[in-house]
């Protein structure tokens, strides 16, 4: 059924695309839907554009594994819309034509601005595209049982078809339908979570038997560890803890050692072993379609109670959060540890129990109680989230699809209502996934669809189809933005090729095809990379490169064309530069993160002010030249 619903959804999207293809002939129709979209439709389409794989898959997953820290993304992403509404919406609509470059360049007609803004649009769009494509692969893999690369190619092909046929009109209606369905069905899932309530023995509504992880007692005799009925094969220290390999009945298992009050306990873990001969074991047995890692999560205690008497039955929305915030509520999460056992590579998923009060406040992921550098990193992230939204090209182009500045304002308000409501739901979906033990230990990106599956195949199929459409819609919007940057900003306005309307649309479609192919390749290349990581990068680059230019052109009369171009280039280069030399990227390159030259992962705190500063200095230095030139 999941496949049938999924295919129906994709067919409907393509049908809509072909229908609008027949109607789209002009450049205005292709890039800006003719400027005739109703503000309410555009508002929900904004939500569709904005609630990308990072929001639906990434945030829910992060809340499931890191609690409140994941919700900080929701807060920051939503706050960004305040900048969009109060500062950017109406002026952008009045200044622009098809792209955000138009708005920046409206006053100056400068080749420098066209080039810098078009490149910035391309760079931000491509960075934003990568996690969407990776998310698509992650999603399609379990749904259709096809490999990651095939999933990425499939998404790419569908999106190219959508974009290359009808452009912004079909993209808008796809986003509208998807945005509305996403909010409605997420609400249904949340109601179901509250209706089911909380239990320390979650069985996913009777679908998956509750699995109780074992704890063994161990003793030390003559310096060696002894465990009744088991043979101790190895003790491997890792990250200030010790993992013990036991054997019983020919099956080897890995356990986390815990020393407390003079007693030694061994806690059961899940694990994967890659043998030197290439074979793979899961929890001691050969990996097969049936023998896969169990879903993780669950509650160890609810307000200090365990067992059947701890079950709450249905709970209210505040009560749900209140119970989970209690220090006596214990939430099962896990940590991933990589070990070497001779020639075998072992990945252990070890239990890590978090008290509710810690789970429900910042600190698990973002070290707000850590070193000054860690605090600065958090501050930098919150700044980039706040300022990044109003500088995202695929969001900005949506202001040109409505007929008036007032409609741009009203559609932004609809977007804030829909997105804000959805972000409240992310808290319940993320926590719902962990309390129902519906988490894939390898990747948290599937938390929301897996939570839906605990309520039956239908909801899983619908949520998966929506998640897939989420990726389709966002990728379509990004490719439109990127193709607009190439066909309109670079080819038409920067190179002044003098294309006719028809040629511009054709150039846009070819650009969409090329960008789509690039996105497919990057999506395959970055398999396994955290979805939210690259989105954070895109926000930081957008906030650094684009926002200072947008703000200053609106509020500072001395802004010059050279100042804008210099600011865009500085913001883009400094943000990307800082990220490339950050601990996270060093880790991804396989280098020691501690040796990274830049101690921050989030560049915004430096790159955004730097971009503003460069704009002011260069504008002041180029005042006279431009005045003379104007004279």
């Amino acid at each position: 059924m999941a496949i049938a619903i999924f295919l129906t959804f994709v067919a409907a999207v393509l049908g809509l695309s072909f229908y609008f293809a027949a109607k789209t002939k002009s450049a205005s129709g292709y890039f800006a839907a003719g400027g005739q979209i109703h503000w309410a439709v555009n508002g929900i389409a904004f939500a569709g554009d904005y609630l990308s794989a990072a929001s639906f898959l990434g945030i829910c997953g992060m809340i499931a594994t890191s609690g409140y820290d994941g919700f900080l993304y929701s807060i920051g992403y939503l706050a960004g819309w305040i900048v969009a509404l109060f500062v950017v919406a109406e002026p952008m609509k009045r200044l622009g034509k098809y792209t955000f470059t138009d708005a920046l360049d409206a006053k100056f007609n400068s080749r420098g601005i066209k080039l810098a803004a078009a490149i910035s649009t391309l760079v931000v769009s491509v960075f934003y595209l990568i996690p969407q494509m990776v998310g698509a692969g992650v999603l399609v893999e379990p749904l259709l049982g096809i490999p990651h690369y095939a999933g990425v190619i499939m998404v790419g092909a569908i999106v190219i078809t959508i974009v290359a046929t009808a452009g912004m009109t079909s993209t808008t209606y796809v986003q509208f339908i998807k945005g509305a369905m996403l909010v409605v069905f997420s609400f249904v899932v949340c109601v179901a979570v509250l209706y089911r309530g909380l239990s320390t023995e979650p069985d996913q509504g009777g679908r998956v038997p509750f699995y109780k992880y074992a704890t063994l007692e161990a003793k030390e005799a003559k310096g060696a560890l002894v465990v009744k009925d088991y043979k101790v094969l190895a003790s491997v220290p890792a990250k200030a803890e010790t993992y013990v390999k036991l054997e019983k009945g020919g099956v080897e298992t890995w356990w986390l050692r815990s020393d407390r009050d003079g007693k030694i306990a061994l806690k059961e873990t899940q694990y994967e072993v890659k043998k030197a001969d290439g074979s793979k074991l899961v929890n001691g047995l050969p990996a097969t379609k049936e023998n896969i890692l169990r879903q993780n999560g669950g509650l160890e205690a609810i307000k200090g109670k365990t067992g059947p008497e701890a079950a709450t039955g249905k709970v209210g929305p505040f009560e749900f959060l209140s119970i989970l915030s209690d220090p006596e509520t214990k939430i099962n999460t896990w940590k991933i540890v990589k070990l070497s056992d001779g020639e075998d590579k072992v990945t252990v998923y070890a239990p890590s129990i978090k008290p509710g009060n810690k789970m429900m406040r910042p600190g698990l992921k973002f070290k707000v109680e850590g070193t000054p550098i860690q605090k600065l990193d958090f501050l930098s992230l919150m700044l980039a989230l706040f300022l990044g939204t109003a500088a995202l090209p695929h969001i900005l182009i949506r202001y040109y699809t409505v007929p008036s500045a007032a409609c741009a304002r009203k559609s932004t308000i609809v977007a804030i209502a829909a997105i804000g409501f959805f972000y409240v739901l992310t808290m319940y979906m993320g926590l719902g996934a962990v309390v129902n033990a519906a988490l894939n230990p390898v990747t948290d990106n599937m938390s929301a669809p897996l939570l839906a599956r605990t309520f039956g195949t239908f909801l899983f199929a619908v949520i998966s189809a929506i998640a897939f459409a989420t990726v389709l819609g966002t990728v379509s919007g990004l490719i439109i933005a990127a193709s607009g940057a190439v066909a309109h900003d670079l080819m038409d306005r920067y190179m002044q090729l003098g294309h006719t309307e028809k040629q511009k649309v054709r150039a846009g479609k070819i650009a969409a095809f090329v960008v789509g192919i690039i996105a497919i390749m990057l999506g395959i290349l970055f398999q396994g990379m955290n979805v939210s990581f690259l989105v954070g990068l895109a926000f930081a680059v957008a906030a650094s490169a684009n926002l200072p230019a947008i703000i200053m052109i609106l509020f500072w009369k001395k802004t010059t064309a050279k100042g804008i171009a210099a600011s865009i280039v500085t913001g883009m280069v400094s943000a990307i530069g800082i990220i490339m030399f950050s601990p996270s990227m060093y880790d991804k390159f396989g280098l020691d993160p501690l040796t990274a030259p830049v101690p921050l992962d989030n560049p915004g705190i430096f790159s955004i002010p730097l971009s503003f500063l460069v704009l002011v200095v260069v504008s002041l230095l180029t005042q006279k030249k431009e005045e003379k030139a104007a004279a």
Partner: protein
Amino acid sequence: MLHEPASQCGPDASAEYKQNIGVWMFLLYAVVYAIFVAINLLRPLWMEKTVFMGLNLAMVYGFGLIVFALVEALIYNHMCRTHEADNKAAPEAK
């Protein structure tokens, strides 16, 4: 090629008024957001204190920021609409 918007907007007599109140409302939200970030950084333990209906400060402030954004947006829209209507009515009265 003319460089005009995808759809013609026409002159907007309320543009300056809307820009002014937009900036003030943005600054108000930015201050509330900055206080939230500052509490997280300087007094993170405050965030786990129960403050309303069994919810801790982190939840109340977090949800509050989302609701506050919508409330501000609706107030802003109301003020803009009123001003735009007044501006339209004024020439007709003459």
